[in-house]
């Protein structure tokens, strides 16, 4: 199947809104290179289950592509056109299985030593697109909060090493009611700036009491789904011919109902949670990985105004077979290891936040839960300095976003 042969009826299995979107831009799709289209379709096929920010981004991209003249389009996609793909890939059902196509395309590009060329083409395309996308002013500066070290009594090594150069460290923070104060702060923002999926609370353990205005995802609440997924995977890998790549394909096709997931009334959030478990590596077994990856995906996809992530102790490392079968439960935890994981994850939280619009004004706060150590990265605070101000977490948050 070549792009110029695309017909509306070939998208009949797409969800309704995704189908409408593709069909209304079919002329544009017919002009794009095959190596590029499945990557876009991979996003569009889930359009009905996307967050508002993602929908806006897809619509804007299609509008920009449709507005290009033919010479402009040829120039923009020249690097993609120069890549060669195999006849097998050309014949693949990339319309209905765009994610599987891109997996196979990736393997093909690695094998034929074209990955670097593809990477350069994609980076150039992405940068150009970003510069042309209409920027909507944010209602309020973005805020990220990472709460790390739950349950750790003491830790002698320095925390927030990677963040220190970018912000102000605090060593006399009053930890009392810290988490509550932070959650209240995020709740206030959600009330003042009510944006769908705009304010999140991610917990790597059991979620704390929080405002219903916050979109909440927690490791504990997904326990039945994780168990169901691990059972599903265990059954799949026993099947003849099953390998890592086949398993990935299987995981990409799983739907919430396949795992007996009870509909929450929010199909978008249900799909998001499922993808955290089916697409994230290690999210099924380590709560710290779950929290880190969820934060990354919330930022990349929902582009929230506020995101509070609280890390909880993960289980100790055990043989992978045992972790997956989960026969011994998750009783034994690794407190210090979890703190180190979360410390790095808080750095990644900040990096991912800085990839979003308004990064120059965004604020980030990380706190060692139950202790006096914290760091704030904000345009209003000096970098690479330490403060001994005795603030509670509410005051520190106010300082971060003032």
């Amino acid at each position: 199947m070549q792009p110029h042969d695309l017909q509306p009826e070939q998208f009949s299995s797409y969800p309704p809104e995704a189908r409408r979107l593709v069909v209304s831009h079919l002329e544009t799709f017919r002009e794009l290179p095959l190596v590029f289209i499945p990557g876009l379709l991979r996003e569009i096929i889930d359009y009905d289950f996307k967050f508002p920010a993602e929908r806006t981004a897809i619509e804007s991209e299609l509008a920009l592509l449709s507005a290009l003249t033919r010479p402009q389009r040829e120039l923009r996609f020249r690097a993609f056109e120069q890549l060669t793909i195999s006849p097998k890939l050309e014949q693949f059902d990339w319309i209905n299985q765009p994610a599987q196509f891109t997996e196979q395309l990736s393997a093909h590009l690695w094998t034929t030593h074209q990955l670097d060329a593809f990477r350069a083409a994609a980076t150039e395309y992405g940068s150009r697109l970003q510069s042309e996308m209409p920027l909507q002013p944010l209602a309020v500066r973005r805020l990220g909060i990472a709460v790390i070290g739950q349950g750790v009594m003491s830790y002698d090594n320095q925390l927030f090493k990677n963040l220190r150069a970018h912000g102000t460290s605090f060593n006399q923070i009053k930890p009392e009611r810290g988490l509550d104060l932070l959650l209240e702060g995020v709740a206030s923002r959600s009330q003042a700036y009510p944006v769908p999926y705009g304010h999140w609370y991610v917990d790597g353990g059991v979620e704390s009491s929080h405002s219903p205005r916050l979109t909440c995802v927690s490791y504990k609440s997904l326990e039945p789904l994780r168990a169901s997924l691990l059972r599903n995977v265990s059954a799949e890998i026993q099947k003849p011919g099953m390998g890592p790549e086949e398993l990935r394909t299987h995981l990409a096709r799983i739907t919430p109902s396949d795992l007996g997931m009870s509909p929450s009334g929010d199909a978008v959030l249900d799909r998001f949670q499922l993808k955290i478990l089916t697409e994230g590596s290690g999210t099924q077994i380590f709560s710290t990985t779950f929290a880190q990856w969820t934060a990354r995906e919330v930022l990349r996809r929902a582009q929230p105004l506020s995101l509070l992530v609280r890390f909880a102790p993960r289980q100790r490392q055990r043989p992978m077979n045992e972790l997956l079968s989960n026969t011994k439960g998750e009783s034994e935890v690794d407190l210090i290891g979890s703190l180190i994981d979360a410390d790095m994850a808080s750095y990644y939280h900040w990096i991912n936040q800085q990839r979003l619009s308004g990064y120059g004004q965004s604020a980030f706060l990380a706190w060692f839960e139950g202790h006096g150590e914290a760091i704030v990265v904000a345009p209003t605070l000096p970098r690479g300095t330490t403060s001994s101000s005795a603030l509670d977490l509410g005051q520190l948050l106010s300082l971060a976003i003032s």
Partner: protein
Amino acid sequence: MRATAGLALGAALGSSSPFVRSEAARKKRKTIVVTFGGGARDQETFAPEGQENIPHLIGELAPQSSFFTHVTNHGILGHYVATASLTTGVYETLNNFSAVPPEHPTVFEYFRKDLKRPASDTWVVAPSNGFNRIGESDSRSFGPGMGAAVILPKHLLSATAHGPTTDLEHLLRDNYETPLYTPELGGSEFEVQQLESILRLSVEDFMAHARTLSSPDELSVYIAKRLMQQEAPSLLWITMHDIDIAHSGAYSLYIEGIRRTDRLCAELWKAVQTEPEYVGNTTMFILPDFGRDSDYEPGGNGFQHHRTGDAASRTTWMMALGAGVRQGVVFDEPMQSVDLVPTLGAMLGFSPGEAQGKPIKEFL
């Protein structure tokens, strides 16, 4: 990275060959290659902020070594295919997740054919996920049985551990690259025979020692040291893999893997100094097969994977120490990971005709 303590710039050195080239000396020469794996970034190893994770490499081995700061892997960044590429000197394109042999001749085949060495003179100790075919290519230039014998310590353990293995399961961790996919480990009669006839270990002694170890790589090093004692191979290749736990996303476990591998490298070097067959005539190479994704690469997730092909995932380092190696020298000139086999060929006197890389001139 370039600030490695106690090292001087290579450019300041003379150009005479550091290697003794007499035939007698060549026959006694031993070479050990250790892949510091799987996949470690500069920032957690030799970069200034990472040096706390490798106290043995920095404090003990680096001052004795020639250190190459800029090794690039332009091939596929999967551990089996990358390690296969290291052994052939060609960027192999085999399926990383299949137990297939490399397409091009391996260093073991070149070594044995050109130097007329017996099978017992080359060994590979490797993790079990697919690496069982790494000792020998399917090249028609070399017949079957011309490669290296491969020991898979986890298979060995699995084969010998009849009954419950609860206290050994930590040594059977496998396949970090796709954590959800965990194939069953299989053992065979052949592997039990390896234990008894080659390593000269009773099952009881092996099991008793295994119970004192904490990771698969510790088991690999134990087996490697046993091979050095019993077979004294001239070309020994050890593939470490504990570090690849990074794929689970737990940074602390990744760092723990690096620290363990650092310790195990020092332990191997110590064994070289104490084994009569090896002391004074052994050259050891230590290098990661590649790096991992950068923290700032939007397509990746930092240390967790090596999927983007960015500079951090493709660029790594190599340390060479021992016989014929200039001590305390740093070379910043770029080299490729496929240069290792031609370098070994130049050092040991075989011709890796199909290798794509070129010998590192500092060893000529």
